[in-house]
């Protein structure tokens, strides 16, 4: 992969470089591939952001013509005085300069001379750029370079809120798992996962791949809302803990009058808010709340009757959860049979996170760093909902308190701008919607370049930008297999074969409910 791919024919500090390609086939190059341009003083480490066959009159005239007995003008049949008669060009975006003598890295503030050779980046090139630390681990390899696992600094990643964005089916779940494994293996924090589809326990219920507890049996505790899951600790919510905001977020479709009515009832309630609304009658409330609003609210509260995890008298799961977090252990909250009910997810996530936020911000006690993975983040952080949730505050403030938000979403455009602007790192899988592309990359230098890259990367490929990686990079996410995880992230040191056997024996029981 170290061969020449072309020569620089145009360059601009602001606009990037253009290389005339000498490749037999432009298909050998792809968007996001790293390329090195050999200047006189510097190596220009670049990223391919477009590959172009320019419109040529002669090509347009020839295409589709049926000339008898003639030689089709291809590069193989027509050698020209300056190389190929038809050639492609690649637009390159310099990302980093490497001094040819000292190997010192610097920002790309200059351009290489005309005809500078462009070549595929080699292992030696990338090794100069990406450096490892005690807190780094790879998520995958760099595209277009012979196998090189690029390391992410998980300590930096978990210092501030970060986002994982991508369309459905592009590999978000696998990436989430790898990020979690990276965090736990480098011991830079613990994680709290709302596990809607049973993916993060021992094994994934959907694709049978290994979950977090498989790799970290001692570090990860599974709670479940589903009483049928006997392997997990039951998660019970005391109705007294429910606040108006939890209901507003859970139902999402409450109008202004309903929201006002909830607060009105909350002010003079006896007992919990859900029961208070259910009990409210027109005789008592009719003069303050419109009858139709009240009956609509009551109908909605009726839906909560099937939430068996909301009840009094259970062991306070939250206290157990907090004590685990104090011990730097991680929590997977399994939703079991509620996994398909988005209302349950919104409700539980809001109740739990609000309490965590209170713990982290109001107590003088120092809590260990906890990364809270919030899937479908826009449901909590849409501009019309964000003010009712704790997540808005969480994204902006809690890095001071060690409670870090990881937003996971397929529609970043629907997340409030202010929240999105707090993200110090973004891991962006394929996105197609222009508004999502623009939002996911808002604030990133050379946004338009990255938009074209992200719009064209395939599944299981992530563009990462932020301070946890040396330079913005397109990464082929590693295959999620125990061998890869052990070899590349765990380094074989975090789990013994006995641990794995023990966990494997429990698998049947986990799925037997």
């Amino acid at each position, binding site marked *: 992969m170290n061969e020449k791919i072309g020569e620089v024919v145009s360059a601009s500090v602001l606009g990037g470089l253009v290389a005339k390609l000498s490749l037999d086939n432009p298909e050998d190059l792809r968007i996001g591939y790293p390329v090195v341009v050999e200047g006189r003083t510097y190596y220009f480490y670049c990223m391919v952001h477009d590959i172009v066959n320019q419109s040529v009159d002669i090509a347009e005239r020839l295409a589709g013509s049926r000339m008898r007995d003639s030689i*089709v003008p291809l590069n193989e049949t*027509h*050698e020209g005085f300056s190389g190929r008669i038809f050639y492609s060009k690649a637009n390159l975006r310099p990302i980093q300069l490497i001094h040819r003598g000292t190997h010192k890295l610097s920002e790309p503030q200059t351009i290489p001379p005309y005809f500078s050779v462009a070549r595929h980046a080699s292992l030696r090139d990338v090794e100069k750029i990406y450096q490892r630390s005690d807190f780094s681990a790879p998520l995958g390899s760099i595209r277009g370079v012979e196998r090189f696992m690029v390391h992410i600094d998980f300590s930096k990643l978990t210092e501030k809120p970060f986002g994982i964005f991508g369309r459905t089916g592009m590999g978000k779940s696998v990436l989430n798992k790898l990020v979690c494994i990276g965090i736990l293996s480098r011991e830079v924090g613990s994680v709290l996962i709302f596990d809607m589809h049973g993916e993060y326990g021992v094994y994934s219920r959907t694709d049978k791949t290994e979950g977090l507890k498989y790799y970290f049996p001692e570090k990860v505790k599974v709670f479940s809302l589903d009483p049928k899951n006997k392997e997990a600790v039951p998660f019970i919510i005391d109705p007294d803990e429910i606040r108006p905001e939890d209901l507003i977020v859970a139902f999402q479709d409450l109008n202004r009058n309903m929201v006002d009515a909830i607060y009105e009832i909350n002010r003079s309630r006896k007992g919990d808010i859900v029961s208070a609304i259910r009990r409210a009658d027109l005789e008592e409330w009719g003069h303050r709340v419109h009858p139709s609003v009240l009956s609509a609210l009551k109908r909605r509260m009726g839906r909560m009757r099937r939430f068996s995890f909301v009840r009094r008298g259970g062991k306070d799961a939250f206290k157990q959860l907090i004590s685990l977090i104090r011990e730097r252990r991680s929590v997977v909250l399994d939703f079991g049979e509620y996994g398909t009910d988005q209302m349950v997810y919104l409700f539980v996530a809001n109740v739990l996170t609000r309490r965590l936020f209170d713990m982290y911000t109001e107590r003088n006690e120092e809590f260990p760093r906890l990364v809270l993975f919030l899937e479908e983040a826009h449901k909590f952080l849409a501009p019309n909902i964000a003010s009712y949730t704790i997540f808005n505050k969480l994204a902006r403030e809690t890095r001071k308190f060690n409670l870090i938000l990881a937003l996971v979403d397929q529609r970043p455009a629907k997340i409030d701008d202010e929240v999105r602007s707090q993200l110090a790192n973004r891991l962006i899988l394929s996105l197609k919607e222009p508004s999502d592309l623009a939002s996911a990359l808002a604030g990133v230098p050379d946004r338009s370049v990255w938009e074209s890259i992200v719009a064209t990367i395939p599944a299981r490929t992530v563009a990462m930008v932020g301070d946890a990686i040396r330079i913005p990079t397109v990464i082929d996410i590693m295959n999620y297999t125990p061998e890869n995880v052990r070899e590349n992230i765990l380094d074989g040191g975090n789990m013994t074969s006995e641990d794995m056997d023990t966990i494997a024996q429990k698998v049947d029981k986990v799925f037997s409910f």
Partner: protein
Amino acid sequence: MREVALYRNNGLDILGSCEFVNFDRSRTVREMVAVDGSYSFLLNISSMWLAIVRVGGLGYTFRDGGYRLVDSEKLEAPILVSTERRVVERQSDLHLQLFEATRLSGDRPRAMMNEFRHHLEGELTLQMAREREGAIIAVDGTLASFHKESNHLHETRTECERRGNILVGISKDSNSHAFGGVRTDEELLNGKNGMAFVRVPAGYEEKHRGFLHGDVYFARLHPDSVKWFRVDVGTFKDDPSFVFSNLAHYAMSGLCPGYPYPLLEAHRFAVTIRQFKDVYEEVLLHLGIEEGMPVEEVIGGLTHVEGERQGAFHEYLDQASRDLR
């Protein structure tokens, strides 16, 4: 329109009496050398014009169904021409000879520069012809010399004969009226299809005796050729079928069927001189300053490729006329 139609048919009768010879491609393929040149004026100070001339010679072979570049040569030279005898007398004999030979030309600097280009083309053709045997040596344009000493044609022909090289001159565009029509020969021949050649009437060659170094033909080197090309045949004159059947191998490119691909590439190479004009201008500015010339004078003397000064008053008038339309 009646008159247009009348004149359009003029000359077709002569064409009817000419012998059109069909031919096929030869069984073996010879190597082919193509030579072409170009120039670009750079500077005009008073009666002096400075230009840069580039000539390229490309050696090709036809192998594995494609045209392979074997070798290439180039000549590049700055040339100063002047319409002022006092200047020319201080230059070379060739300058003086060309000065005399172009005295009747309406555009003497361009005429002289064209001859210099021919001269360099001839020099390179001769050099490459000497390096080969049994090849095709093709030059852009006719095998005619406006001035005997200027293009080495006589010497090249002798050399090609000695080495068994086919020597041809192929004109991209010919304005000749050898068939006696009102329309040009190319226009007259346009209706004729197939792969064939035809020699021009003897009267034409007779009229140009002394200038011509070959027999004049028009040929269609490919069944889908875009047109008939004038081909001057300098060697193997007794066997034109042999010449055209060999040449036809190189006229099969889908880019320009009927026109030899090596000549197309040689042309592309030569005209790069015009694309690099900015680079030469920059060099010129530096040299001018080194020689003590005021920079304004050098800038004021910069020309377009054909020799007209940039920012000449007629350009202003042209622009003004367009704007006022």
